[in-house]
């Protein structure tokens, strides 16, 4: 095995991350190559330096402080849950669903909402048309009381005026 390949794997070799076959090849190479051996020793020296930092003891009372905070948060969570629960029904089950199921549920709710909006709009429009038709039916018989009732001079004039082309008059 060549030095370039050994050096590229030396850190992983020092950390026991290589396969047995590759480790054996590097073992054989290090036995014969002084330069790679020096590089490997440098890696081990860095490890020894980090060991010199020593063990960091956990602060006194650390676990107790966590448990105290944990108990207060659990109690607070229980109070909130009882406030929002209706006759034993709770929305806790919603948070336990997986993300795809929650997304599908939200999509269904939104689709139902928009469908309802569309249908209600169509119903209200058809209702308006019926109102207009009923209004026209209601006006039957009252056309004689309009400003230009049928068979009046004004009504005849308006019919004649609408049949004339304005272009003919300007010639």
């Amino acid at each position, binding site marked *: 095995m060549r030095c370039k390949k050994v050096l590229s794997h030396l*850190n*992983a070799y020092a*950390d026991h*991350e290589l396969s047995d076959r590759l480790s054996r090849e590097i073992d054989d190479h290090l036995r014969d190559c002084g330069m790679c051996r020096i590089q490997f020793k*440098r*890696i081990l*020296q*860095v*490890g020894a*330096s*980090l060991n*010199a*930092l*020593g*063990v*960091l*003891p*956990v*602060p006194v009372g*650390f*676990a107790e*402080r*966590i*448990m105290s*905070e*944990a*108990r207060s*948060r*659990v109690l607070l969570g229980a109070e909130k849950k009882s406030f929002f629960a209706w006759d034993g029904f709770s929305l806790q089950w919603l*948070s*336990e669903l997986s993300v795809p199921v929650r997304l599908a549920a939200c999509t269904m709710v939104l689709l139902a909402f928009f469908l309802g909006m569309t249908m209600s709009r169509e119903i209200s429009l058809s209702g308006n048309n019926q109102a207009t038709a009923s209004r026209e039916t209601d006006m039957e018989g009252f056309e004689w009381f309009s400003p230009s009732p049928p068979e009046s001079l004004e009504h005849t004039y308006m019919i004649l005026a609408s049949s004339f082309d304005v272009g003919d008059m300007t010639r």
Partner: protein
Amino acid sequence: MTVISDDQLMQAVAHGDLDAFNKIVLRYQHHAWRTACRLLGDAMEAEDVAQETFLKILKAAPRYRPTASFRTYLYTIVYRLCLDTCKKSRPSLMDTIPDRPSASPSAVDNLVSKECGEEIRHALESLPLNQRTAIILKHDEGLSYAEIAQVMDTSLKSVEMFIRRARENLQSKLSHLK
């Protein structure tokens, strides 16, 4: 005496068993505290991060699924909280920092009495956060490259590169020490 596994303890915590949660805390408090301390270099911030790690585990217990080892899950939370802390309070820790001691004395300073230990600690703190995280998780916590990649949400190749560069940087800073 049968040892209860982490997954069994988490199942109990999910059902509101605070004794099980206490066992989790006692089992992993050293790991969380030590990792946060090495990453942040400040004992008070490390304690806040370690405490918040366990409280997040408690809150997420009902949704916990053992897709990876609990240890990896714990270190992932520690790392992300340290990342947030660095971004908010000390963005300089994201990259290399100048070679000067920290302004306020901390419990960490008291522990390391030897001068070379102090230099090693400063050399470690001068590494960029990603290199520091990778080398600490490997050297102090004994995680594999695959586990470190999972914690840091990166590739195996990146982890190898972080560790290689961390060692090269430490080597150059500590070469004068015997």
